[in-house]
């Protein structure tokens, strides 16, 4: 058990962190690098709930937005330092996760859509004009935080390490195995003595917190924003697409998903802006149709055959 954990972190997490750490010297679009880490965290965070408990929250961006606003409101209304505000962002998302915990009663698409509705509801509350004194409402927020590219990037990588460490641990631990059992069949899991509700809640909250923390870091790096920017549904869609494409429940899958798909996204965006949407859409369709099991499983299959 322990061995698998070490192996996976050594094979996946360590190289990834090294590459991410040296990237700024090779490529100086820091924001793109940061966004890659943001999507890595979102994809792995989603992987926590979907890969281990089978819950696919379409409204995952709600936690991201909660984190961003948690960060922003702390800075707007208190004298707290940004680092503390990042923590507050995580806590805000954690609380949102707790409030939404009853949704875990739902299944499949019902859960997915209910979480989406919840994210939308949160956005409408924050963007409500009557609350503009507090949240900035539709006028958005402007934060006067010092620009610290190295710190924010490092912080994002730190969050990524935490989330991926958690994923790696879940993959090897008995707790993770129990989660997967509960995902397969909650009824027999319960009769086998597994506390299904507790397990789900733990990964759900971990997943929410991850999104909140990274949302806060994102807000730090893009300190002028409107509600629609941090509650943009495409965060959810992308995190889902990347995770599913790479292979949920694995450590390397979401990484591959982000690198391949988000990489392609940015390459196409820069090289063929006129046909951006078209080419990207076709690419996604082709990948699903020709690699239906995701790229990670392809790698796994190779290894097994070889």
């Amino acid at each position, binding site marked *: 058990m322990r061995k698998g954990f070490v192996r996976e972190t050594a094979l996946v997490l360590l190289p990834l962190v090294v590459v991410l750490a040296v990237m700024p010297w090779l490529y100086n679009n820091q924001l793109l690098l940061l966004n890659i880490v943001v999507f890595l965290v979102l994809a792995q965070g989603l992987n926590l709930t979907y890969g281990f408990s089978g819950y696919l929250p379409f409204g995952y961006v709600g936690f991201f937005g909660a984190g961003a606003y948690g960060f922003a409101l702390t800075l707007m209304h208190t004298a707290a330092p940004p680092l503390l505000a990042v923590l507050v962002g995580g806590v805000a998302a954690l609380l949102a996760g707790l409030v939404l915990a009853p949704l875990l009663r739902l299944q499949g698409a019902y859960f997915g859509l209910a979480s989406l509705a919840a994210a939308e509801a949160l956005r409408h509350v924050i963007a409500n004009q009557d609350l503009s004194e507090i949240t900035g409402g539709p006028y958005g927020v402007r934060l006067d935080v010092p*620009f610290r590219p190295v710190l924010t990037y490092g912080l994002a990588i730190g969050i990524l390490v935490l989330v991926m460490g958690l994923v790696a641990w879940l993959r090897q631990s008995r707790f993770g195995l129990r989660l997967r059992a509960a995902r397969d069949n909650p009824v027999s899991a319960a009769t086998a003595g597994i506390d299904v509700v507790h397990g789900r809640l733990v990964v759900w909250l971990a997943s929410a917190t991850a999104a909140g923390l990274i949302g806060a870091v994102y807000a730090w790096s893009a300190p002028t924003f409107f509600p629609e920017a941090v509650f943009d549904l495409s965060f959810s869609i992308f995190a889902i697409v990347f995770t599913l494409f790479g292979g949920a429940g694995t450590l390397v899958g979401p990484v591959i998903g982000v690198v391949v798909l988000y990489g392609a996204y940015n390459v196409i965006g820069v090289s063929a802006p006129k046909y951006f949407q078209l080419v990207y859409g076709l690419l996604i369709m082709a990948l699903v149709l020709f690699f239906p099991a995701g790229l990670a499983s392809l790698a796994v299959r190779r290894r097994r055959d070889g």
Partner: protein
Amino acid sequence: EAADAPAEIKVGTLYAGSGAMASTSVPLHVALEYWADGLNKGGGVFVKGFNKKIPIKLISYDDQSSPALAGNLTNQLITQDKVDILLADSTSVMTAASVPVARDHKMLLWDVTGSSPNFFSPDNPYIVLLALAATDRYPKTIADFVKQQMPKLGIKSVALLYVTADYTAFQATAVRNALKETPEIKVVFDRGVPQNTSDYTVFVNNMLAAKPDAVLEFGYPANELAFLRALNDTDSKFKFLFTGYGLTEQNLIKSNGLAEQLHHSYALAGPGSYEFKVNYGLNRHQFEEAYEHWVTSHNIKGVEFGYNAIAGYQAGLVIERSLAVAESLDQLELRRAAFTLSGNLDTLCGPFVLAPDGSQSGEIAPLGQILPPAAGSKELGLSIVWPADLATAKPIYPSP
């Protein structure tokens, strides 16, 4: 000196080729392409620093209406493409993503229509607003009109209907504040609606029930269409009707068959409709013709001439003029150059006046009243009713 001149001036910009912002962003971007192409046909843009004409290379990326992507791509333009001139995408939501990036990289952001006051502060020199007065100043004419003229017209009650987004809510607030200072007028209806509201019938109905003398409506073009449609569908008429885009997006409204609803209504006569005198570049009529010719000859579909087109062109002109004064391509020098134009450049959007923080305080549109087409004509008429120094006619009230 000319030896170290660059082979081209790189102008980088973003546009939304798809998603919610596409319909405003694309016409603007098309105008920029038109502008750059025109310059290049004449050998490029004259750059004072090198004392010669240098071709322009327009580098444009599609941000798909996603602010996160816009941030990335702004960074891409700065760090990879190393553009000399950095333009933001249209609308405040998209511009917001570029503002901090530009500032962090000490690049001047040529902000075309991102007019949120949030973007401007004395300690950030890296932004200038080009084609629209900042949101807190833009509604000045209508607010003044409300205060000074409405009571004279005998208007006693007003209904406000606005989209609860940055730009529109700001305007409504300006009007509401003006009304607070005007005790003889009562606000009988004051409603914010979500931006994606596409059906206004319920609101129109409720507004009718409040029996206001005057109705002021602020929305984005899509809301405007929906609002006028609702008036049309319910056969509603008001004695005084103000719409946010009745003049600036008149072509769009016309092409959707809703022109009749605008008869005798009021709107800010933005550059799409009001002919500001220009002291540089094409006048409105010439530009419209040129733009439409460009659009058809390049086989571009579904793009209307309107405010956004003018804003794009005007942004180009300001840049062009700034380069003609700037001693170098240094970003703060460019800013200084832009400020030399302030008060001296008359544009299609009105007089170009920069506030010290880089926001725009000229380019405030007069209030116009839209008139039915004159006999034998298909074009709607227009009279300017406010401010007094620009007025060409008295408001016709109540509308017949």
